[in-house]
């Protein structure tokens, strides 16, 4: 174990410029984390505003225009400013080089550039908010988005710019995984989080350019009336939907694959058990990333596409389901004959399994064309993707933050409070979104600012629990940052969970500015709990 480490990346070098111009992946990751969480809170407040409005049927609290702005901004901020950039940008940046034993990512300057590109894009998003919002829905469907008088152009321009940041981060990660591993760390010895980031990055560099070009066409449509998506000029609004979902369905995997990676790390470490089906999980990551490109049409089952397309897209959709299902079983079986500790990260991982299973299974309902016709664009879909995006990705993200917090920042949070918050998130989440499945089945359409009396009971129930969800997430994150403020430091050699991958065994907490004091030597695989005992060391 490493003792007496004098330097760490948080305190060395000093000065504001050393942060603004840093090439250190850990500092860049921290900057992503802070900005990501700010946008997360912003999106969360918007969500609570929506729930408040929907507690009762009429326009009691805000007008329809305001509601439309709020739900659009909620979606756009959560997806484009928080989930897509934040998990790869924050946890990926901090951990990926550590996990492969590199001193930094392959292209550190590009990495810093991508953070600034992200910030620049975020400025346009903020401008949109200040300037009165945008009311098209985060999907920007034409022809509404070409006619709306709201700030469609600043928002799409922001998304276009942030797309470049995604692409550059993806490029960087792919090159890092391919070329920067230390000798002996072969593909099958990589932690599964690295595999997950690799799959994510592949999707990022191949799908994002299509989004970028779609946004360009949308802006040209507004500026020059080029008519490609405008039915009045002989264009086709459905083509826009094809383009948009060709990116945005793979984007779902940009969002969920890192979560799979986090869960694949948390469960073996906190169960002290070799992961079940390593190769399967690794390959299913890649196959999900690939199949994800072929199913976009299932977002358009009611758009009037040909019967043949409906059948094909429904068929391929189910092929994403099966590898995902086997992954869930693998994670559960990992606990078999292990030593399971109910630490905060583990609580999050277990609630991930519960919530994501519901999210995945409800996808089966939506994949069946005949049933999707009824459920399309209702609250069933809203509940489904929140179970995947929030119950899956965000719960895993919170778990990952708790897991790597002592490693990344050298401080330990209050574990009791963390556990209580984790339960609060779990209960609040189910309370908020489970009723929405029923709402959808009973025919409540999404994106409604007002609704008829028959839906009141379920809506007010959902609103009540959303408050609990909001509080729990807020305090969970405050609890983390509080440990930082209180300087509740852990010993630099700490390995509180007994992790086995390089970031736990070969670096100090927080890590050295150059990651490793001496070049790391590969000794054992990331999950070799059957071969080596790694002590849990956690001293204040």
């Amino acid at each position, binding site marked *: 174990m490493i003792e007496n480490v004098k330097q760490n990346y948080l305190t060395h070098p000093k000065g504001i410029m050393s942060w603004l111009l840093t090439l250190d992946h850990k500092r860049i990751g921290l900057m992503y984390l802070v900005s990501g969480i700010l946008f997360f809170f912003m999106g969360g407040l918007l969500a609570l505003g929506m729930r408040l409005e929907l507690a009762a049927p009429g326009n009691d609290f805000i007008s329809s225009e305001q509601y439309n702005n709020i739900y659009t901004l909620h979606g756009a901020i959560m997806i484009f400013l928080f989930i897509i950039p934040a998990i790869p940008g924050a946890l990926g940046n901090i951990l990926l080089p550590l996990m492969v034993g*590199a*001193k*930094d990512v*392959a*292209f*550190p300057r590009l990495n810093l550039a991508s953070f600034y590109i992200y910030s620049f894009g975020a400025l346009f998003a903020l401008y949109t908010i200040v300037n009165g919002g945008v009311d098209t829905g985060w999907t920007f469907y034409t022809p509404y988005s070409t006619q709306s008088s709201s700030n469609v152009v600043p928002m799409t321009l922001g998304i276009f710019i942030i797309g470049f940041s995604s*692409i550059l981060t*993806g*490029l*960087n990660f*792919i*090159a890092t995984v*391919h*070329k*920067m591993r230390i000798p002996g760390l072969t593909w099958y010895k990589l932690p599964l989080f690295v595999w997950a980031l690799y799959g994510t990055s592949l999707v990022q*560099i*191949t*799908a*994002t*350019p*299509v989004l*970028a*070009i*779609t946004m*360009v*066409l949308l802006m*040209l*449509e507004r500026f*020059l*009336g*080029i*008519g*490609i998506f*405008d039915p009045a*000029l*002989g*264009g*086709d609004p459905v*083509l826009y939907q*094809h*383009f948009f979902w*060709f990116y945005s369905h793979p984007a779902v995997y940009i969002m969920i694959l890192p979560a799979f990676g986090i869960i694949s790390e948390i469960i073996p470490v906190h169960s002290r058990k070799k992961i079940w089906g390593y190769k399967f999980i690794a390959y299913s990551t890649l196959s999900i990333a690939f199949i994800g490109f072929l199913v976009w049409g299932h977002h358009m089952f009611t758009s009037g596409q040909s019967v043949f397309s409906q059948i094909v897209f429904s068929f391929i959709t189910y092929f994403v389901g099966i590898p995902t299902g086997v992954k869930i079983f693998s994670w559960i079986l990992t606990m078999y004959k292990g030593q399971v500790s109910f630490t905060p990260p583990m609580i999050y991982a277990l609630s991930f399994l519960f919530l994501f299973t519901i999210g995945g299974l409800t996808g089966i309902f939506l994949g069946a064309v005949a049933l999707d016709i009824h459920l399309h664009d209702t609250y069933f879909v809203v509940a489904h993707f929140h179970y995947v995006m929030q119950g899956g990705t965000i719960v895993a993200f919170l778990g990952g933050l708790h897991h790597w917090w002592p490693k990344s920042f050298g401080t330990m949070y209050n574990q009791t409070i963390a556990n209580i918050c984790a339960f609060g998130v779990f209960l609040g989440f189910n309370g908020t979104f489970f009723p929405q499945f029923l709402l959808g089945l009973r025919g409540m359409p999404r994106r409604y600012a007002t609704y008829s009396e028959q839906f009141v009971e379920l809506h007010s129930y959902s609103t009540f629990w959303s408050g609990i969800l909001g509080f729990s997430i807020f305090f969970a994150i405050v609890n983390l940052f509080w440990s930082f403020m209180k300087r509740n430091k852990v010993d630099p050699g700490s390995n509180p969970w007994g992790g086995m991958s390089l970031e736990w065994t070969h670096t100090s907490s927080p890590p050295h500015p150059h990651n490793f004091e001496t*070049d790391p030597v590969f000794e054992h695989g990331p999950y070799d709990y059957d071969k080596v005992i790694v002590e849990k060391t956690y001293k204040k």
Partner: protein
Amino acid sequence: MSHDNSSPSFFQHHFHDVEQQYETSKFGMWAFILTEVLTFAGLFVAYIVYRSWYPDMFVGVHKLLDVNKGLLNTVVLITSSLTMALAIWAIQKNLKKLSIFMLTATFVFALAFLGVKYQEYHHKYEVGQLPGKYYSYMGPEVVEVIKDQDKIDLYTRTKNVYFDAETNRFYKTMNNPHIFFSIYFVMTGLHGLHVAIGMGLIAWLIYSTARGKIHHKYYTPMEMIGIFWHLVDLIWIYLFPLFYLIG
């Protein structure tokens, strides 16, 4: 550790050795090329969709493009790819002056390409062959006289019919010719933007080579920009027949 004083100035210390640095850059560049290909792929899909919707219009309207200028540009761009490759060959052989000459030639060819493109664009602007709602060209290529002038009611709903007071007849325009120009301008415009960015990069290469920052032991940037330039060339080789040579 590789922090010894013997490491060359271009070596970045987060790599193990020069070899790894070179391999990584090259790998990253190819990944970027993949991204570029996907960017244009989206537009090629739009092209395919609309060409299959309006096959006759595409064939008819493409005659408005100047094949000679397109062909000239194709030759210019292929030659520039050759001079780019020669520049890399020259720097590998430590022929600095030749390399700079070849880079300059590439730059000039790129400039010539944009010049020809400007002429084409300018002409289209003059005659109103513009994208979307700015389209106004009504030349004989896109207009036909409607034969049954008395059955005109059948046509009026299609929006392609207009009445000319001088000849006192109704005319029918081709189906949405502006869509062809929308796609033409977006695709060639994006390609032109790539050429312009490439010119900036080549100018920087000329400067760096002259200053001795790029030399026969370290020419990675030139090789990477070379790959980019070949891609730009390749995309044009697809664009040229798709727009100028159909029908």
